[in-house]
């Protein structure tokens, strides 16, 4: 597993056992592993399981974002995992 570019000392955790259910030609794809790790499982508004809703992952630059709809309360929004809080950055 390669380390994220902005964390030279970061060690990616081993693939959890549950990810062994990944099958098919892309079973080793680290994106798919991270997808399963980060997939929101509960609504950030009401806490209900998102099993009856939907959470679709998409990428915007380095951000991995889950567009999410909660079946129970109707909350709709984007959820993104934050690995580092970053303020303004000077242009290169």
């Amino acid at each position: 597993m390669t380390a994220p570019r902005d964390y030279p000392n970061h060690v990616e955790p081993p693939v959890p056992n549950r990810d062994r259910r990944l099958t098919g030609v892309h079973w080793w794809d680290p994106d798919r592993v991270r997808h399963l790790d980060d997939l929101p499982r509960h609504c950030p508004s009401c806490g209900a399981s998102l099993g009856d809703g939907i959470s679709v992952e998409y990428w915007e630059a380095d951000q991995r974002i889950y567009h999410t709809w909660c079946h129970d309360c109707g909350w709709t929004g984007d959820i993104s995992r934050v690995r580092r809080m970053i303020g303004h950055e000077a242009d290169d």
Partner: protein
Amino acid sequence: MLSKEQNETLTRVGPGTPMGELLRRYWYPVSFTKDEWPIKKVRLLGEDFALWKTPQGGYGIMQERCPHRHASLVYGVVEEEGLRCGYHGWLFDCSGTCLDQPAEPDKSAFKDRIEAFAGKAEEMGGMVWAYIGPDPAPVLPRFDVFVDPGFKDVGHSMLPCNWLQIMENSVDPHHVEWLHGRYFQFLGEQKGFLAPPSFQKKHVKVGFDPMEWGILKRRLLEGQSEESDDWAVGHPLVFPYSMRVGGAGIDQMQIRVPIDDTHTWALFYSNHHPEGLDSYPEQIHPESYEYEWLDEKGDFIVDYIEGQDVMAWVSQGDITDRTAEHIGKSDIGVITLRRMFREQMALVEEGKDPTVAFTREPHDRIELPCEKDKFGAGVDFALSWLEMGSTRYSPSLDILKKIHIDAASARGEMPGQQEAAEAPGQ
């Protein structure tokens, strides 16, 4: 990227599946009325049916297998009262009620215990439309393309892929400038033809608005203002299985009938009615024909617009593996569609009617928003459509070209007319 469970939920169309239950709340075209048949087999949403023409001029549709011992009712007999099984003569009316079991004793009430599943079937726009969901059925939406006057032309083919990957293409405007723009140009450079330049314009921005009939799709192309039809009007994905497109006097409904999980009947139903003409060549039935999408070697035919689309849809596999996709900001239309499907599925799971593209109001015509000035290309767009689209397989291609050229001439828009009008002394 989706989980495996989410992908299954969105793609399986059989009875008892969440998507299958949602899709069973809508009407689907299942046949052309012009075809010569008294009874025919049709497959829809993973189930097989017998469709028949009644002596009264209507249509009936019911489960293919006779409830008796499961022989196919497609090999039955059409009678005044309904469809009679060819095996032992059981007779069913259009509602599925068993009217007769000729081999049973005269006093038997056995037939009163038998009911076959029957749907509803109606004619509209030269096609038979079927509803196989629960009662009460919604009203068949009479969209403008099917009921407006004009010259109607329908290309169709059975494609070996799930219907959803075709629908996702309908909320993906960026593919136009690449698949039909740059890729088409590349092919043209190799093979020595001029690809339509209007498809090569760069997208500046795209927009998606959920609306009563589906999702209104807008695009702003390089050189356009927000007052352009492509942005100000746009065109809709018509939920759950169509897309309304058009421009330059062509109105088209792209129809993707989910036959089962891995097959889709893909139709391009066009109504040609360019401004400048008051009448059109007479038609008893719409022109209909199969468009080709594989060549004799089994390769995709990609030198026309819809052939390129078919390549993109079918080459994803029978059901594309969305657990391995990588989608980005330019795919927000796809995300919007998936969310709409999930929301509507949830309503049906709760015992409610869908709220998108579902109506119980009787009506004569539903007008859908659709840009008229497509890509700012005028009559050139119409002619590109005819020659570089699936219409090239139409037996009525020459008639269609004449319709658009005559209309452009009547409007004074044919090349040479404007120059002549602007020339000194004219």
